[in-house]
């Protein structure tokens, strides 16, 4: 059993699996049950300023999209930050942290964008003995309209300014949670870094409408005949989150800035992928909301098996794929592969044929008795057939050895060469 102990910006936890700030971490009852189930840490549901608590809708707050067999793939919510009194939360946080010393407990915060508000809230949480703070600059609905959440996260100057205040008025490690509702994740990440953030966490949810009620003609979730945009999360957002994490991990100014990876983490494999692309730990929300706290057991066993099989320590995994995350122009244009269909695994559904014949390169042949074979002289190796095949490993991509001839182009497979030196590149021709 691999050692999964995690040290993220000085915050220790028995494993790198934390619950993200959201309903699973809304109160002591949830958090204690999460710890009992094995979660390494939690980021408490975002706290706001002292005063009358915010109010949530009392109709549906979630919309969803599903895959086959009604598997939840994406969730959208219009929930706001905590709607419980500040002092109740603070008392519970203190009690829970005292009881669970070995687990991480970070407090998420969102208060108006002025120095006094931040100074005040930081003073009030000091006494809880929490391990750190996470600044929620990400929530895209409800709070943004009030000048908080993603309204701050979309303006790098604000991010930097608030982060500075937090570092000035608090001794706690500070994680800045970023919104994906921007054109590039780099300016917000750079701003957090300049403001002195100890880490960034991402992503928060993505502005979305999941579906429309075609009888009431309203977006869903529908509140009395009307809907507003919500924040999207769950497995569907993972690719977006992975890319943003990786961009920060390799960017020259933010390289080395610790990252807490969030967005669609559902299995050990998702977590390992985030970590390979630079995340020091991961946070989970939708998967816990879909399957309950127990899923962490699979994450723990899976990551442990993987590290043991690879004979790697957890720290070896973090960032291991970052050097291989390059720009398109750096890809080897002399790397040639061809699709191969394993006749023993093929169940003859013909989906690869439909995909290739109708929408790709007409590179799959179908015999009258439904045997499917790849025509190497047509195959551009796009991988679409692999992706639509219902049987894992049935269609694979086989590399053509160097020196062999690609039947499609008639060219010999050569050494590494990329676009920057390719004769078709106008920039090369100009020289």
């Amino acid at each position, binding site marked *: 059993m691999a050692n999964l102990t995690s040290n993220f910006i000085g915050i220790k936890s028995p494993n790198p699996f934390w619950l993200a700030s959201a309903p699973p971490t809304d109160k002591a009852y949830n958090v204690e049950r999460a710890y009992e189930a094995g979660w390494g840490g939690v980021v408490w549901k975002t706290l706001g300023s002292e005063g009358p608590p915010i109010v949530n809708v009392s109709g549906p707050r979630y919309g969803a999209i599903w895959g086959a*067999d009604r598997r939840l793939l994406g969730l959208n919510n219009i929930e706001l930050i905590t709607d419980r009194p500040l002092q109740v939360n603070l008392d519970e946080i203190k009690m829970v942290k005292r009881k669970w010393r070995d687990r991480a407990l970070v407090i998420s915060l969102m208060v108006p964008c002025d120095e006094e508000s931040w100074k005040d809230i930081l003073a009030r949480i000091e006494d809880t003995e929490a391990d750190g703070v996470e600044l929620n600059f990400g929530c895209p609905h409800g709070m943004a309209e009030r000048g908080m959440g993603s309204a701050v996260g979309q303006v790098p100057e604000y991010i930097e300014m608030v982060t500075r205040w937090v570092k000035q008025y608090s001794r706690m490690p500070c994680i800045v949670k970023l919104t994906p509702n921007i054109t590039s994740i780099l300016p917000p990440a750079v701003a957090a870094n300049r403001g002195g953030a100890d880490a960034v966490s991402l992503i928060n949810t993505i502005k979305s409408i999941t579906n429309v009620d075609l009888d009431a003609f309203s977006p869903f979730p529908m509140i009395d005949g009307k809907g507003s945009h919500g924040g999207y999360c769950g497995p569907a957002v993972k690719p977006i989150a992975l890319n943003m994490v990786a961009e920060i991990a390799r960017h020259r100014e933010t390289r080395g800035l610790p990252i807490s990876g969030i967005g669609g983490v559902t299995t050990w494999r998702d977590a390992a992928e985030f970590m390979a692309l630079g995340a020091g730990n991961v946070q989970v929300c939708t998967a816990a909301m879909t399957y309950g706290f127990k899923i962490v057991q699979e994450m723990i066993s899976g990551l442990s098996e993987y590290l043991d099989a690879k004979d790697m320590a957890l720290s070896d995994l973090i960032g291991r794929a970052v050097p291989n995350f390059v720009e398109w122009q750096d890809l080897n244009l002399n790397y040639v592969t061809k699709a191969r269909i394993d006749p023993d695994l093929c169940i003859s559904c013909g989906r690869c044929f439909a995909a290739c014949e109708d929408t790709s390169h007409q590179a799959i042949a179908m015999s009258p008795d439904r045997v499917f074979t790849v025509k190497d002289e047509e195959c551009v190796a796009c991988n679409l057939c692999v992706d639509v095949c219902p049987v894992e490993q049935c269609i694979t991509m086989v590399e053509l050895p160097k020196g062999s001839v690609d039947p499609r182009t008639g060219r010999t497979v050569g050494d590494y060469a990329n676009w920057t030196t390719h004769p078709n590149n106008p920039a090369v021709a100009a020289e």
Partner: protein
Amino acid sequence: MTQSPMTPGIAANRLSQAEMAANFADIAPRFDRHEAMVAADRCYFCHDAPCMTACPTSIDIPLFIRQIATGTPEAAAKTIFAQNIMGGMCARVCPTETLCEEVCVREVAEGKPVEIGRLQRFATDTLMDKGIHPFTRAAPSGKRVAVVGAGPAGLSCAHRLALHGHEVTVFERRPKPGGLNEYGIAAYKSADDFAAREVDWLLKIGGITIRPGALGSDISLAALEADHDAVFLGIGLGGVNALTIPGADLPHVRNAVDFIAELRQCDKSALPVGRDVVVIGGGMTAVDAAVQSKLLGAQTVTMVYRRTKDKMSASLYEQDHATAAGVKIIYGAAPKAITPAGVEFAYETGETFVLPADQVFKAIGQTLTLPPIAKDGAKLARRSGKVWAGGDCAAGGEDLTVTAVAQGRDAAEEINAVLVGAVG
């Protein structure tokens, strides 16, 4: 081939080698990866899952299926073995249709459960084929425990005790360990010598010695108690209920369990079987004797049960399995007399009929022999003083492999608690 299914009397070699091999091949071969993925994908990861409650060993089924789905069958196997060290055999022999799969929410909703048993086999086979034994023994405790009987109950108990660091000696009266896994279970459920391979794998924990010896003749309970800190009895049911009708002792009448034990150990083509076989009884043993007679090449096999279909202890699934194999089942008829040519039965309503029979198997239930400790009803008490009992010989639960494993494990935990002084 000189013999055929038509050859009268009791004869060997009724089928060709190829037919025989096909008949006794693995009845539900291991899922390949694709099948396992598709099957695992159907699990909903239910909260407080009904399947888990229905499993006598309480395997965390949703967790292990999720571990398969996420590409870690080895982790899935560890989840299984942590609760049930014979998870490999149970995956093959458990009547899942009356246990976990019966209560699967998808069985209730769609009439098609998640195939838990076959997924369990996929996971356990994956780890066992790698030769990995996923547990390590605790430091030696200096305590010695005797286990009598190397069946599922005894071996499960021995493994758990060894895990806790105790020194275990298992006394077994038969030449091979495994109990009914080795001598009872239908051959096609435990193909490729799985029972023996599983025992070898289980013993890798270390700290367990199997010694020949029969309690009652070679060794006495008093001596075991004197030499050990605790004793566990997992002796199964050694006796069979007597059939007291005229002709019951004729040479062509045999105990089904003896026939099955012989079948499990011999070259199947060499095993003689009747042309017209009659099996008396309605349990799993009766089904197995009937089906395997058919597979050996008997021409007609009839199972006769004295009560109604719904009272039969073999599940509906097992009954269907028998009829699909070509066994005819007659319900509500009791045997009256056996002659060299056939068996006479009488329905409850009084009508009688005679079935021709070259061979007759009695499968009317097994009984406890040699009850050396306090009894609880017809069976042994689960504990009396420093002697524990579990499995078929002990009170409580159904007579199933999985129940034996659960009771052996639980007894080991109790013994451990007593030996380390946690409880009295």
